């Protein structure tokens, strides 16, 4: 995908223009609650997700952002229609690549954002029940693709190197199952997370 290649080049070039200095890197580990929206009449329950980010500060206010994002298997509320009773669940992982600008207030506070592209892998599972005497079933399918992510957060420096942080994130997976099905969808994951950042 040209866009992700371009972003990767920008990040790498930017990294090479500055020599590594002390405390220009950061590791963030965030745990969050997710809300999934597949754009239709889906009714996903709240799920959990883990995000790990490595930041390399190119300037005092800007860092390259590389991350991994993993959700747990998030089920939908059971639904009933004339075919049967069914429930879906989604599990997703993504590799993230982007930029992280920040603004540092007078110590100990800062605000930051993230903006970039994601390469996702998503598995969708369906369980269905038809009633007595008719065999139930469970099927699943998975897909890979590209999307984007954007987030905004705030941090509080507990010590000189350790920051407690809160973050609101929106991730968009575009055209899930495009080319495999006549009914592709876009998956939006919104998460609110808390975590720890460590500067080194």
């Amino acid at each position: 995908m040209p866009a992700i290649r371009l972003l990767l080049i920008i990040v790498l070039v930017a990294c090479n223009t500055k020599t590594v200095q002390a405390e220009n890197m950061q590791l963030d580990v965030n745990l969050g609650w997710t809300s999934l929206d597949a754009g239709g009449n889906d009714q996903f329950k709240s799920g959990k997700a883990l995000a790990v980010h490595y930041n390399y500060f190119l300037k005092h206010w800007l860092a390259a952002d590389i991350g991994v994002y993993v959700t747990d298997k998030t089920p939908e509320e059971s639904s009933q229609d004339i075919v049967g009773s069914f429930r879906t669940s989604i599990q997703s992982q993504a590799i993230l690549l982007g930029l992280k600008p920040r603004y540092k207030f007078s110590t100990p506070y800062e605000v930051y954002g993230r903006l970039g592209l994601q390469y996702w892998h998503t598995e969708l599972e369906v369980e269905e029940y038809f009633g007595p005497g008719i065999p139930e079933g469970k099927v699943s399918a998975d897909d890979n693709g590209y999307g984007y992510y954007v987030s905004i957060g705030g941090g509080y420096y507990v010590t000189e190197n350790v920051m407690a942080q809160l973050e609101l994130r929106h991730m968009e997976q575009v055209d899930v199952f495009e080319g495999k099905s006549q009914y592709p969808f876009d998956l939006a994951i919104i998460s609110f997370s808390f975590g720890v950042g460590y500067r080194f």
Partner: protein
Amino acid sequence: MAVAIGLAVLLAGCEIDGGDNLPRVSDQGLVMYAEANRHEAEDTAQIAAAVFNDGETVALVGGDVFEARTVTERILLKTGGSFAGSYAASLPVDNSVQDIFFDIVHLPIEAREDRWYPIDLLNIDPGPGELVGKSATVTFPPPVSITAPLPDAVYTSINDVITLAWDLANPPGDAMRVLSAIECNDGLATSSYGTEVEIGADDGSAVISMDNFIYDLTAGSSTIKFLSDAALGLLQETLNQLSAGNIDPDFLARQAGANPINSMCEIRLFLQRQLQGRFDVTFDDGTVFGSTSAEVSVLYLPAVTTN
């Protein structure tokens, strides 16, 4: 006063009794009820169907679904009626349409089209059920035109009678029937429900007692036949079409708050001319009708009594 409050509390908890509201279904075998009704000059026909096996409703599952079609249009009956195993939908028609064809078909993907996920990729198909392949055909009778009573005619007692009159048709229908949608308000609460009255011959007039529409919640029994099975689904679908979707989906089967006999009630009468259809594949029992209908509304305003 205390008695009135007590009565109001008692009535607020009452529901229309569904125990006596079941369709008259044969205890044995496979029974199908289906009807296609065209109301006045509407450009859709309301379709309703239900199947019973040994007296129990049969839900079509796993991708089995009723299909109603004309030569040019088709629709799947995917909306459930008021009880498991009844289905209703609206099918586009025009004056050139004479026949409606019913089929039970197995369409595992189309039946799931209201779902959000890739139903063609994630499809659990248990295969066609035993009802698939059953079919029936109905023909619309001539349109109905009501000549009496006049709209908004007022009745004050359940002992009153409604003299219903309509234009004769050539050829006549096999039977006439009145479906009613009734809403009552006593100033504090409302009730809404539907009833059904079989009139019989298509001979141009019938006299129907008001107690076929209005009843006393506190009485142990009444002469009312509440709407059930395909007729209920059919009238609810008709009301939905006439109101452009702005009607309570449970209008005909909701809780009774006001006692109709003491309330002001609007009674919407839907007079139907029915023509018996035919089953193309044998069922053990059942009925299939094509019908046309017309509406007139009358009012029930109980006389005020003084002590």
